[in-house]
């Protein structure tokens, strides 16, 4: 069993809990302070349609160079106080760590050029892919895939990354099934037991790599987990309340990175980041309306209310009439950040936060559970748990309670079918035994096709 940390909330007063400021800001050598009072844009971009091979790598690098040039020059044009670039490496660039390193060098090179020529402050987040899946995987912590992830992390760290992140996937196969079957106990197992243990092992290593290279371990996200259920809920494929419960449970898993030493900014697509910020005081990156290029969502505004970096999630390098799409995203992020920073300077940060929250939180359960006061209430329950397993169960129970109360009070629109499923999920939750070992044994038995020996879980 992995030890939990953070037995008290970083925030108890909701009036201190706001965008642009975190209890434990990240101070960068270039003068940027993330969570230190200023909201920064975080631009993420990816390749257009093309193959990544030995032969195409020169074209791949040229694409990254073009994108970062466009993005940085927009940063200069709109006089941003600083910015982040995130590169989520594509699978071939983690399977071949050297390719990931080459991408890092090219991107960082352009960023340095703009720092020298135009005084543009910028930080680079490199996010290797968690390639620990697929037909040939034998073990999560040794063998080819593990080595590829670690070698890519090390190579990025040594060649220009300022922050390391990953969208880790320990427990994802179990979680996928739990979403397709809206099986809450299986979700609890995949997140609170398998996922948390995997995070601990993975992030202990990433923290070491960052320290060895004098850069920062930033954080993880529940992209493969709660984002899957959020998209499924958004399309009405599963109840939206499942996605909200799943999101809050994911906070426990994502927090393990911070327990291992990650300092933020937590990664954009982890909407559970608001819980991470509440519990640990770590600054967070968030994505919302500007990220419509990457996925539509029901949290386009509320996601901005507590953000310390503001991201477009990702956009491919295609031409729009105004500019290449990454540059378009950068312009949109920069204007949003201007709005937020001016509001803060004028003393209207809390009003701005609440306007953004109230524009979304009535219409969708995930939007609702991102409401600052709700976050603090549920987070306050979560930290009472003494193990990750316990905290994950508490997260689910507290979310069900909050959603039901909100729907009854008229502060959240929930149809009768959604309400019915709240009851079903509560029953599912109550069926989980208190004993972690017993639950684990049950789950291993009930899921014979998953080899948990790979995780050293038996």
């Amino acid at each position, binding site marked *: 069993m992995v030890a939990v940390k953070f037995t008290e909330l970083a925030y108890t007063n909701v009036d201190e809990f706001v965008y642009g400021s975190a209890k434990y800001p990240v101070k960068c050598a270039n003068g940027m302070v993330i969570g230190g009072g200023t909201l920064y844009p975080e631009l993420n971009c990816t390749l257009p349609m093309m193959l990544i091979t030995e032969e195409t790598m020169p074209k791949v690098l040229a694409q990254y160079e073009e994108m970062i040039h466009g993005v940085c020059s927009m940063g200069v044009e709109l006089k941003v106080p600083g910015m982040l670039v995130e590169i989520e490496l*594509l699978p*071939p660039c983690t399977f071949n760590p050297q390719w990931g390193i080459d991408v890092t060098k090219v991107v960082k090179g352009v960023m340095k050029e703009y720092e020298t020529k135009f005084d543009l402050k910028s930080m680079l987040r490199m996010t290797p892919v968690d390639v620990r899946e*697929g037909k040939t995987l034998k073990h999560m912590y040794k063998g080819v895939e593990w080595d590829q992830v670690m070698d890519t992390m090390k190579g990025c760290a040594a060649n220009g990354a300022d922050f390391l992140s990953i969208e880790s996937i320990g427990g994802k196969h179990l979680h*996928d099934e739990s979403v397709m079957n*809206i099986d809450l106990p299986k979700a609890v197992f995949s997140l609170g037991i398998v996922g948390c243990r995997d995070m601990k092992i993975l992030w202990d290593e990433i923290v070491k790599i960052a320290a060895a290279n004098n850069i920062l371990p930033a954080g993880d996200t529940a992209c493969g987990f709660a984002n899957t259920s959020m998209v499924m809920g958004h399309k*009405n494929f599963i109840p939206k309340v499942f996605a909200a419960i799943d999101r809050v449970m994911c906070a426990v898993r994502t927090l393990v990175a911070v327990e291992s030493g990650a300092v933020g900014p937590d990664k954009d697509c982890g909407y559970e980041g608001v819980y991470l910020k509440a519990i640990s005081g770590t600054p967070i990156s968030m994505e919302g309306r500007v990220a419509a290029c990457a996925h539509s969502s029901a949290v386009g505004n509320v996601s901005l209310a507590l953000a310390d970096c503001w991201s477009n999630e990702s956009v491919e390098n295609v031409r729009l009439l105004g500019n290449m799409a990454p540059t378009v995203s950068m312009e949109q992020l920069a204007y949003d950040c201007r709005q937020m920073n001016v509001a803060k300077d004028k003393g209207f940060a809390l009003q701005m936060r609440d306007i953004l929250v109230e524009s979304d939180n009535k219409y969708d359960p995930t939007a609702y559970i991102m409401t600052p006061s709700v976050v603090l209430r549920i987070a306050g329950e979560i930290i009472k748990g003494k193990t990750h397993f316990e905290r994950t169960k508490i997260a689910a129970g507290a979310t069900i309670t909050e959603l039901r109360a909100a729907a009854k009070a008229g502060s959240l629109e929930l149809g009768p079918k959604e309400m019915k499923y709240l009851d079903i999920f509560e029953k599912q939750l109550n069926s989980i035994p208190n004993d972690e070992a017993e639950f684990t044994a049950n789950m291993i038995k009930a899921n014979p096709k998953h080899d948990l020996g790979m995780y050293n879980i038996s």
Partner: protein
Amino acid sequence: MFDFSGLSDAVIAGDEDGVLDLAQKAISAKVDPLSIINDGLIAGMNVVGARFKVNDMYVPEVLMSAAAMKAGVALVKPLLKSGETTTKGTVIIGTVTGDLHDIGKSLVGMMLECSGYAVVDLGVDVSGDDFVAAVKANDARIVALSCMLTTTMLQMKTTIEVLATQGIRKNVKVIIGGAPITQEFADNIGSDGYATDAAGAVDLVTKLLN
């Protein structure tokens, strides 16, 4: 005529025990086995598909209905006369080489099964040769390719080329889908069609096979 409404309702409710019970009763009542399947089980599944399409059922509910239907079919199938068939044809589905995205493709497979097609899901990261082998082994008429990355789109083209090289491109229709796909791309790589979602994929398959 036999009243199939109870059997269909059991399928819709995803009540596997109920389906087995009522199907057994129909067999005992000497109802034509093909009629039990078509007018009872598949009729129920058609309702499920239609309700899912208008957001009136969730995926897990559909999966339970599908499981109940399959249990019923398994019970009745041995009684069919030779030559009678219970599916509209076989679809091979998978995510192409280099791409590990699973769920979108699984949903398409689910909807095709709901609509009476036999589906062989090869999973993710599937090579052209594996598609070829599966088409041959299952006498399939449709190959459905999925990808979610801009950097794996061109593997769809490669897969279609492998089908051609192996001489089976003319025997099958190839359809494609996934977040980065457009109709234009579908045309350019020589596929037979593209759909934006699972319901659209069913319509497309139906059109291509008729």
